[in-house]
């Protein structure tokens, strides 16, 4: 039985249909990387899964429970679906620790001492043991993004969604964030990752989904997709990431 199931998902903004009949499933512990050109609907897909966007057709199931288009208790569903954005939006008026504790304490009403201990352990693990009392403005982009990941993890979500979490970072900072994701994958976290780092995708993914113009063009293993893409669209897309040597 799949942990997360997306069935015939359709999403449109007014007339414009962004996602056309998307179906796939995610097993517990699986890491799925979604790739595709800009504007193909990758981010929208993630936003639909945790209910930031309403959907026009199909269903999304988490643990066999319908989670799409719910209105009343969507905040309870979102506690099970963690999400990290490209723009690492920490709350600027709170220090790092309070940023992390807000959800567990206020939304989940968990015990403060326990959550705090967990938060500090996580900060240690992502290499920020001394930043618990810093404010977001005092951190670099990569550090902020790692805090944002810890903030999502401390909610104990069943599945984590990462929406181009390194797109706004300098190259050196990209590495430190991707290392954290690698680490989580080794831990057996269930994750859906949207990224433009193909080498990283190849290394971390159990399954790659190639999305183009709102449709799943390919859904296969990373080895298959990166070495022998089945579709012409896939081949063209991958060519964007390689360069031929022109000068001798």
């Amino acid at each position: 039985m799949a942990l997360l199931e997306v069935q015939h998902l359709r999403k449109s903004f007014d007339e414009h249909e962004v996602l056309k009949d998307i179906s796939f499933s995610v097993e517990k512990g699986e890491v799925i990387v979604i790739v595709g050109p800009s504007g193909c609907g990758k981010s929208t897909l993630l936003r639909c899964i945790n209910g930031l966007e309403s959907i026009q057709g199909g269903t999304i199931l988490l643990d066999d429970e319908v989670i799409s288009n719910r209105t009343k208790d969507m905040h309870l569903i979102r506690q099970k679906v963690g999400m990290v954005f490209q723009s690492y939006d920490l709350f600027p008026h709170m220090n790092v620790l309070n940023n992390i504790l807000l959800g567990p304490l206020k939304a989940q009403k968990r015990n403060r001492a326990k959550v705090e201990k967990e938060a500090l352990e996580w900060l240690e693990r992502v290499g920020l043991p001394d930043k618990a009392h810093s404010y977001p403005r005092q951190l670099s982009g990569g550090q902020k993004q790692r805090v944002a990941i810890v903030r999502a993890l401390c909610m104990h979500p069943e599945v984590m969604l990462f929406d181009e979490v390194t797109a706004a970072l300098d190259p050196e900072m990209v590495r430190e964030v991707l290392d954290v994701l690698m680490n989580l994958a080794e831990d057996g976290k269930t994750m859906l990752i949207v990224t433009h780092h193909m080498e990283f995708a190849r290394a971390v993914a159990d399954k790659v989904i190639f999305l183009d113009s709102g449709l799943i063009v390919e859904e296969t293993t990373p080895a298959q997709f990166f070495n022998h893409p089945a579709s012409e669209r896939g081949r063209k897309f991958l060519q964007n990431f390689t360069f031929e040597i022109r000068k001798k």
Partner: protein
Amino acid sequence: MDFTFIKQVIPLYTEAAWLTMHIALIGILLSLIVGLICALILYYRIPVLRTITSCYIELSRNTPLLIQLFFLYFALPNVGIKLSGVQCCIIGLTFLGGSYMEETFRSALDTVGKVQIESGQCIGLTRAQIMRYIVLPQAVSVSIPGFCANVMFLIKETSVFSIVAVADLMYVAKDLIGLYYKTDEALLLLALSYFILLLPVSMLASYAERRLRYAQFGNT
């Protein structure tokens, strides 16, 4: 300059200053509440209430306090509502201040970006919790300079209270000029009184600004 005269009338000014501050304080507190409620109504786009609020704001901002007080004091008795001068002043100040406060608060609420709200949603907070823990604290620190400007503006607006026979600072000064013809002394004391009232307020404002904005903006 007649210093014995000044010495004699200082108690009158002190008394008037207390009354002025008393009315101003109540009026400002009520404006704060009215402003906050109106700002939230407009922020959440609550139907019907939103239209009423917009009408109130236009009416309040586009008429002078003087005229509003005239209306309260002289027109309302004709329909059987009799208010004391002080009551009129409190209501008038609140009516005027509410809309100014609303504009300050609403623009501050709008500065908190959509992604902040989505981040709050993603950690499973309810709408009310997002407002309380994420939007309001940030909006408050943004609104402090505007809020303080409003407070000082409203304190200065109290100078029209004398027209509804409330013995505020202006009233005392005009009274003394009329009785003793000591224009220079009376006006000097008047200006000085307002200055002494407002200086601590503006100092408190800068202090509050530094304290409340530290987290978000650092020591700037």
